[in-house]
């Protein structure tokens, strides 16, 4: 039978833990709300860009760009970059595990191609570093503060586009893997193609009623300038979604951790009371049998 002192100590320890998990849950919930606001705040920019892009695309249909259509090389093995967006921190349930699993699935499916990884986030980087995967580059602590800086996005995108366009070792396709934010309770890893972009489709096929713009620069130039921005936007969006998912996952994980802690405390307290009661009973028996013996 465990002694009373140990049980008390354990109850206290679990209570402390519950306090921490509760606090983390609250913090995540508050940050999650802000992260969701950020996703909404990014929408006007995306809409505007798609609108201008769609317009420019219609005005310059003959414009070609490797970013749009790819390289058209005759090779047997494709060279692929997979950008994996994980969290920098743990304690968020299956968030990172789901991603690394999805990434491993992707690698398995593409084992006839040459796949290299670009890791965003420490957790995924640590995971694949230990497994001797081909990591081309890593970006750590980008999403650490729960914010996404445009500067970082521009840098990451610049490097990816440079990889894609590189003269001696061009990359054929770049995919993006991140956790999509479905709700605070559920996140789903998704794989999106980042480059080549493919055909621009903004939904509106008829020339917009304000169709005829005066172009200060030729439409094709504006088109070309906008394409990297489109990629930037996609990455930015993925990072925002990932941050929101991470916070959602952490909130849920901490919620159930707090619940579990409460259960453990209840069980330990019950146990503790039983032990205490047993001790009291034993003492009474001792006193009574001592009195009888006299």
């Amino acid at each position: 039978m465990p002694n009373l002192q140990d049980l008390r100590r354990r109850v206290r320890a679990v209570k402390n833990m519950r306090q921490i998990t509760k606090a983390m849950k609250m913090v995540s919930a508050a940050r999650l709300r802000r992260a969701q606001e950020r996703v909404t705040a990014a929408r006007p920019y995306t809409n505007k860009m798609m609108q201008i892009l769609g317009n420019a695309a219609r005005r310059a249909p003959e414009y070609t760009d490797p970013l749009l259509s790819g390289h058209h090389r005759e090779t047997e093995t494709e060279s692929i970059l997979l950008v994996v967006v994980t969290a920098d921190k743990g304690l968020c349930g299956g968030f990172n595990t789901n991603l690394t699993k999805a990434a491993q699935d992707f690698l398995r499916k593409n084992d006839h191609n040459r796949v290299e990884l670009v890791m965003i986030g420490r957790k995924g980087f640590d995971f694949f570093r230990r497994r001797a995967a081909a990591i081309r580059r890593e970006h750590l602590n980008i999403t650490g503060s729960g914010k996404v800086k445009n500067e970082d996005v521009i840098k990451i995108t610049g490097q990816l586009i440079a990889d894609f366009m590189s003269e001696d070792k061009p990359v054929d396709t770049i995919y993006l893997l991140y956790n999509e934010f479905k709700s605070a309770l559920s996140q789903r890893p998704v794989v999106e193609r980042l480059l080549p972009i493919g055909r621009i489709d903004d939904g509106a096929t008829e020339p917009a009623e304000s169709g005829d713009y005066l172009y200060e620069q030729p439409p094709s130039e504006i088109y070309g300038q906008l394409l990297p921005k489109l990629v930037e936007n996609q990455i930015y969006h993925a990072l925002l979604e990932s941050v929101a998912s991470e916070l959602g996952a952490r909130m849920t994980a901490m919620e159930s951790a707090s619940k579990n802690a409460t259960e453990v405390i209840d069980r330990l307290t019950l146990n503790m009371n039983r032990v205490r009661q047993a001790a009291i009973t034993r003492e009474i028996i001792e006193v009574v049998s001592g009195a009888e013996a006299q």
Partner: protein
Amino acid sequence: MAEKIKLEVVTPERLVLSELVDEVVVPGLGGELGILPNHTALISQLKTGILTYRTGTEKRLMHVSGGFAEVLPDQVSVMSDVAERSEEIDLDRAQRALERAEKRIAQNGGDFDFDRAELKLQRAMIRIQLAAKGQG
């Protein structure tokens, strides 16, 4: 007929500004573009510079860097990588950034990212200009 222009400035991070104004001057790639209500529809690339807008007699300044401006008769939409109102600019930080950028350009030879440093330099200079104007 529109008598005012709806000026909207968006960056990837947020909607910076949405206001009804009388006149906008944007730093186009080929030079400054002054826009009054009922301007022809137009699209232009922007360079790092100062965007000015006027409501009545009140003139306000804003720092924008890169991106595009879309002009419609009653609306101007600016999408830029960076956009700050003059009162949001931290002068000290801009000054430090200026020094850093100057040093980097002075010290380094060929193999570093000259464009980036140059852009940083430009931004810092515009910010300082703006902050000086805003406070002076």
